[in-house]
């Protein structure tokens, strides 16, 4: 059932550019897609390991900056040394963005998972703020408030077919869709595995999880690495699509946007961030004609409070319960095959 829904939805997304010609709406869908990927990555931490990480935009921004700088080149003086980097192809930027964001996820995970609860939240916020201030002040490298401009468009090099630069909106749309689907599949595999079970176990009852031999720090850090790497991928897509980034990419409000997407959609569900991302990505456009930006944000704030009070699980679990009230746990097919024959066990 769910698989069918997912496939129909995917088919809808695949054919969408065929009938939706408006470049502005396509533009909105592309940025929505990018933020949805970021929200999916946040969901891994927020929904599956239960850690309220509020510095997530740092990884998104680091991905964007790494990818932009890799493709633009830079020269920086650090003490007596001068580092000169010649521009590399965009694909290299994308890969480096994923790797370096993942590495930052590792470092921050190692550091911040020493604490929990309020401390953890504040530490993660602080991390994003430090990165913002570094991006703002290390002008030699990042151009600071002058912004990194003229970032090249994404270019795919296919062996034998040469390099294809994605100038238009439609190719960018498909690129983002492809990365989003890939991210979805990776996350789905991860949470359905032993590793995903360990993460959920940590969220539900850390002591009990530890008592069966699950290494807390290891799995939290692993979740942080994968989550950060995916956010970095989203950041890279963002940088090469909008072609300009500045330190305000690290503002707390963007993390909040991702959090709203995850929480409203349903944290700890695969479809949650997708649904939340689509709603909150496209809502501003639909509201724009009727509401000023301030009213829009006020609406977001009210919606967030509403969700917490009324639908604490989020939209997806609520809709699922309505649609399939009794299918809380459909026996997975694989399990059914080893189910014992009916009768007394012994």
């Amino acid at each position, binding site marked *: 059932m769910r698989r069918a829904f997912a496939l129909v939805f995917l088919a809808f997304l695949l054919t969408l550019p065929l009938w939706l010609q408006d470049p502005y709406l396509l533009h909105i869908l592309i940025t929505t897609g990018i933020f949805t990927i970021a929200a999916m990555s946040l969901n891994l931490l927020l929904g599956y390991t239960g850690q309220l990480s509020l510095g997530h935009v740092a990884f998104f921004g680091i991905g964007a900056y790494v990818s932009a700088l890799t493709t633009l080149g830079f020269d920086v003086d650090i003490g007596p040394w001068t580092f000169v980097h010649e521009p590399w192809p965009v694909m290299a930027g994308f890969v480096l963005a994923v790797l370096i964001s993942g590495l930052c996820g590792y470092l921050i995970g190692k550091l911040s998972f020493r604490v929990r609860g309020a401390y953890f939240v504040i530490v993660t916020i602080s991390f994003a703020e430090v990165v913002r201030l570094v991006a703002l002040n290390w002008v030699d490298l990042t151009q600071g*408030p002058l912004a990194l401009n003229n970032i090249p468009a994404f270019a795919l090099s296919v062996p034998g077919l040469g390099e294809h630069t994605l100038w238009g909106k439609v190719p960018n749309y498909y690129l983002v869709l492809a990365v989003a689907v890939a991210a979805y599949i990776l996350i789905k595999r991860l949470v359905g595995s032993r590793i995903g079970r360990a993460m959920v176990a940590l969220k539900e009852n850390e002591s009990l999880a530890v008592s069966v031999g699950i290494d807390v720090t290891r799995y939290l850090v692993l979740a942080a690495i994968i989550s950060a790497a995916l956010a970095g991928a989203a950041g890279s897509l963002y940088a090469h699509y909008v072609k300009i980034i500045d330190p305000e990419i690290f503002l707390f409000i963007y993390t909040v946007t991702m959090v709203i997407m995850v929480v409203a959609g349903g944290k700890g569900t695969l479809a949650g961030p997708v649904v939340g991302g689509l709603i909150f990505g496209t809502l501003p*456009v639909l509201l724009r004609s009727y509401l000023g930006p301030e009213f829009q944000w006020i609406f977001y704030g009210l919606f967030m409070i509403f969700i917490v009070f009324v639908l604490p699980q989020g939209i997806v679990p609520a809709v699922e319960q309505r649609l399939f009230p009794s299918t809380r746990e459909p026996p997975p097919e694989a399990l059914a095959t080893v189910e014992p024959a009916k009768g007394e066990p012994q």
Partner: protein
Amino acid sequence: MLNMTKLGGRALLAATFAVGFAAAATAQTKIGIIQPLTGPAAASGNYVANGAKIAVEEINAKGGVLGQKVELVIEDNKSNPTEAAAVAEKLITRDKVPVLMGAWGSSFTLAVMPKLMEYKVPMLVETSSSGKITTSGNPYIFRISPPSAVEAEAFAPKVQALGIKKVDFLVVNNDWGRGAADDFSKMLKSKGIQVGLVETMDQAAQDISAQLNKIKNSDADTLIITTAVEQLTLAFKQAAALGLKRRIITTGGSQNPDQLVEHAGAAANSTMHLTFFTPWKPEMSGNPEAAKAFIEEWKKRGYPFAGLTESFRGYDGIRTIVAAIEKAGKAEPEAIRAALWNVELKGMNGPIKFQKAGPAGKESGQSYPGVYLITIEDGKIIVPQS
């Protein structure tokens, strides 16, 4: 999930219709404006936008352009480059404006420029002063504000008269501030004058006392400050509180001297300012009648007098664009771009006529307006006779 998709689809469809309908119903000539309406440069951005509105009402009262009313679509760049690029994208692809005006700060304008190339839409630059804007080879750029190098040259004759020996800089950390520090340093050095500290401040910084404290301990006799009026107010107050006694000169024409007098009080006394319009003496303007009428209208609407040194840019900018549309005979980007080269207009601070700047073959347009050095004495603005 199905329900959500359906709902989303229906809403999307409705929105598409709404957009289409709106476009069909209003046969108006649209001009897109990108200004900082919020954030650290908000005061200036709002003044410019209001100046533009006055120009549009004036033009529409006289029957509009090409028989159509002019309609402004104003977007907020939130004093941020990425946001400037994003709203440019929106204005061009969604509102389908054939021409833009903006984006106040140099960094915001530079951010918009690739979008102009991508969609081939011209933009009139009303405030930005960074040299990069007209030298990077963007043929869609037409600037009516002076680049900081021009400002520095205009100031050059005064250097000797003021007896300046050594100068420190305190500039906002963006293309505007850094550009001004570079261009003024170059001019000063060519006159054999020493350049000391170059301190920067984030455009949102409130506490600048650390930089000022450093400057206080230098041996320069003059401090050149480049930033928007809010931060200037803070810098003046904090300099006074630190007992920093130094000749202070500000550049960039976004000082709104009356606002400085009002908010910084005695701290603004004996400071000097390079401005591009003298609303205190409209007769000095390049177009005295228009200047007087504009000032009257501005006051009538209850806007603060202080805003005039900024709002005239919006007023002149829109008049220039409309003149180009008139000449082009149609409100289409390429035609407007071509026509802008032929516009000749009496602006508030001198004639507006674009000359070629930047690499050959893809030149930007640059007009060269007047620059004035005014002084604040005992809370009064002193305008030089010339």
